[in-house]
């Protein structure tokens, strides 16, 4: 091997070809319980002597058996584990419907100001006027962006917002003497949370088929409407990534039939600042702050799902809410009039309100509109670059913020959508959303968001095209055995579900339990 004057190797002659998978930096990490023990602790606390406790004989006898780590051990354990995760900060996350966009760190910094993080939900209202102002400002932004009359901030996540929105609709129908309306219309392409929410409230679900172009047919909605229909739950832009072209007609028909229009706002990112859902005739819509307004997904939450409400539903907003009065801002915590009760303890996801408002102020109205437009531009760019090879089930219209493909381009290759997605992992990308929406066979739903540069999009498209060529060339093995470069190969999910192991047990305990 030749050396330069600093003694460093130059050139690649005689160097073994790299077979590295990065394993040296990604060691397997044992479980917390396999490293720590009940004696170790990473927290120093003063000694206390309890002379006479006031526990009334309820003192713990059952062993806790909780493993502890000192601080350096804990640091290493959680840093090592973290390295086994893909994240938006390390690469593109093209998960359709999930809106994995950049999470600005200013948001995190602001959420940690003691004036927000270190205030108690039940301390006197006079001592939290800044928090109430923040909630009022966030509400103003949300109502302005959607052209609606009210907003309920407290839902904890999108599905919780759906629940609240549908509870408001149920209460409004009851107030009109229409409690007999027991049916909710849900298009086949809807998120699973929609029918789950409707069923939760005792509604039966009537499915609405899609038209050949992937949008909901106003005529089909009209035919499905009757005087026992309480509401329609419609996602717009829909889960195929398409704007519902007949949405205004649908809203009109729904209202004419005495029903309400619940809009699933999971895809609001495509239209924020460009189209106001209130102008389309919606009555309620949840907004996922963790999608549209960049609060981090955190490996599965926390989210936040404020619900905007039309004038017809505004009286049914739940407590608590902020109201301006002579002495400043007040928090209305107990029901008045038709207000729904409480759907969570306290005020909702304040930490997410801070992050979302920070994001809104950073973008401004102009920046939010530009972000929506760039999200749509990026999705259409991916669609344009891939459509000669990938199959596009609904090619008639430009897509919105996500591009949908089906698996017909994989016909005869023996490669499934799942195999294809796993092969993408080997190329350094997180897979797209697979097999959703259900209306498309072997769906691949790609949502780049506005955060990706043209360079990254080009890289992604080139990898996608390369993989498609590889599949068509008959190299099935590269797909069915994928991933091979990830920290784990494909997992045996059947085994996990058949005999569930849901916690760690000492080997002697585990074998005892098995007997």
């Amino acid at each position: 091997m030749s050396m330069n004057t600093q003694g460093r190797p130059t050139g690649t002659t005689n160097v073994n070809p790299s077979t590295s998978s990065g394993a040296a930096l990604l060691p397997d990490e044992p479980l917390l319980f396999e490293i720590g023990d009940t004696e170790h602790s990473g927290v120093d606390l003063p000694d206390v002597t309890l002379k006479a406790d006031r526990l009334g004989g309820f003192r713990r006898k059952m062993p806790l058996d909780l493993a502890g780590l000192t601080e350096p051990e804990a640091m290493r354990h959680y840093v090592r584990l973290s390295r086994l995760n893909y994240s938006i900060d390390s690469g593109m996350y093209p998960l359709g419907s999930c809106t994995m966009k950049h999470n600005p760190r200013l948001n995190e910094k602001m959420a940690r100001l003691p004036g927000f993080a270190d205030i108690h939900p039940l301390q006197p209202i006079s001592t939290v006027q800044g928090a109430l102002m923040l909630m009022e400002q966030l509400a103003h932004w949300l109502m302005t962006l959607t052209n609606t009359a009210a907003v309920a901030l407290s839902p904890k996540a999108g599905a919780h917002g759906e629940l609240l929105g549908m509870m408001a609709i149920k209460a409004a129908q009851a107030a009109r003497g229409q409690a007999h309306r027991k049916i909710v219309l849900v298009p086949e392409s809807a998120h699973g949370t929609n029918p789950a929410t409707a069923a939760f409230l005792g509604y039966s679900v009537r499915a609405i088929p899609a038209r050949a172009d992937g949008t909901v047919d106003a005529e089909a909605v009209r035919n499905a409407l009757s005087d026992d229909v309480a509401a329609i739950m419609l996602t717009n832009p829909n889960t195929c990534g398409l704007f519902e072209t007949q949405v205004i007609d649908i809203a009109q028909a729904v209202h004419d039939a005495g029903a309400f229009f619940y809009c699933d706002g999971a895809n609001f990112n495509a239209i924020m600042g460009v189209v106001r859902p209130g102008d389309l005739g919606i009555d309620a819509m949840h907004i996922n702050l963790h999608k549209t307004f960049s609060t981090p997904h955190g490996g599965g939450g926390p989210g936040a799902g404020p619900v905007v409400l039309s004038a017809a539903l505004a009286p049914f907003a739940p407590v608590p809410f902020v109201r301006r009065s002579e002495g400043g801002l007040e928090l209305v915590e107990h029901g008045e009039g038709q207000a729904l009760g409480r759907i969570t303890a306290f005020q909702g996801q304040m930490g997410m309100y801070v992050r979302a408002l920070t994001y809104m102020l950073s973008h401004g109205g102009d920046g939010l509109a530009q972000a929506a437009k760039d999200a749509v531009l990026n999705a259409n760019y991916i669609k344009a670059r891939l459509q000669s090879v990938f199959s596009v089930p609904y090619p008639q219209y430009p897509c919105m913020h996500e591009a949908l493909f089906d698996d017909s381009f994989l016909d005869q290759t023996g490669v499934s959508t799942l195999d294809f997605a796993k092969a993408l992992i080997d190329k350094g990308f997180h897979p797209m959303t697979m097999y959703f929406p259900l209306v498309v066979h072997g769906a691949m739903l790609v949502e780049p968001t506005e955060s990706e540069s043209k360079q990254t999009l080009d890289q992604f498209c080139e990898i996608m095209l390369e993989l498609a060529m590889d599949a068509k060339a008959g190299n099935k093995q590269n797909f069915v055995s994928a991933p091979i470069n990830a920290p784990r190969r494909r997992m045996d999910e059947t085994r996990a579900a058949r005999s569930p192991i849901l916690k760690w047990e000492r080997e002697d305990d585990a074998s005892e339990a098995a007997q």
Partner: protein
Amino acid sequence: MRYLPHSDAERADMLAAIGAQSIEALFSVVPAAAMRSSGLDLPRHSPEFLVEAHMRGLASQNHAAGDGPFFVGAGAYRHHVPATVDHLIQRSEWLTAYTPYQPEISQGTLQMLFEFQTQVAKLTGMDVANASLYDGSTGTAEAVLMARRLTRRNKVLLSGGLHPHYRDVVCGYLKDDADLVCLDASPEGQGDILDRIDDQTAAIVVQTPDFYGHLRNIETAAAVAHAKGALLIVVVTEIVSLGLLEAPGAYGADIVVAEGQSIGNALNFGGPYLGLMATRQQFVRQMPGRVCGETVDADGNRGFVLTLSTREQHIRREKATSNICTNSGLCALAFSIHLGLLGEAGLVKLARLNHERACALADALGTVKNVELLNATFFNEMTIRLPVAAEPVVEQLAGRGILAGVPVSRLEPGRPELENLLVLAATEPNDRCKHC
């Protein structure tokens, strides 16, 4: 705009590749009546330092818990969170990961959830735990629904010691439901539920320490409930208490729901918090929310996946056990790291310290004239009866920089018999020399 990578030239190149004249042309399918040609009445984009100044301005108008003497609890507790916890949860790989649906590249989150579930099961003394719910209050409503599915009965009894917000949430979830019985507030910790259980009862819900701080006899409640075929749901709003108090599982609880905020998570004005749920092995398929399980990969190496998803909405749609999707992943991580740092030794010490602080507070309050302590037992929280209404007293003290506790009337308005009651908590930052 600092978060948007494209230059105008790049946008033009991309439009050319698409074959569109403008980005607006991509929105051509939007009905013209709904398309905004002009901007909305909102401020324009703003540099980081100005946004920060605005947010700091708002934050400065709040009185932070650390600014002075602080005794507020009632379902959310101020505990010290080690610096390590917040550093770790802000690592990109934790903070900016999605739900671990692709297990091959999400083993960090999945292993953490498996460890978290183990910690929650051990703390509560139950067989299994899920990967978290939104918070303790919504978790309680989910537990009630779960008990109904399990028993195929409808009647549910809520103890008068249950946190009033939790009661209100359960009522909200089960609106118009005649089978829900909410018992009157029991500030003296009086038994109130056992003689109401009958053979139509699906479940009873008992909180310990209860809203007023009393420790409730779970063992007896379990025996009476089980004799009638009903389930016992135990609610814990202060999870640190389980370092010192007997595990609900040891007393025969069927479902345990807890608010996990106390470990690893800040007060945050009420959220995000962390719902914990644990139950018996045989009930696991009716448990809502995500669950992580151990398995092996194609090479036979140990790994973790989300499992039992046939309970969940994305598979079962209208037949799912719950509509929950997003949960409290990052709060669960903070909880798990903090509890991993504490370990058994640290948690026991922390719980003792809290109880010792509370004993000191109780003793100090005992010396105040005309103040009556209602608790014979407590962990780190108690209720006192003042000679006057509590709310104005709390306001007055707030004016002097002291956050004295929660007047019960804030949660139970229009109840004269509760008007003079004040709930106070003492946690480890309450140094007895300074604040009592």
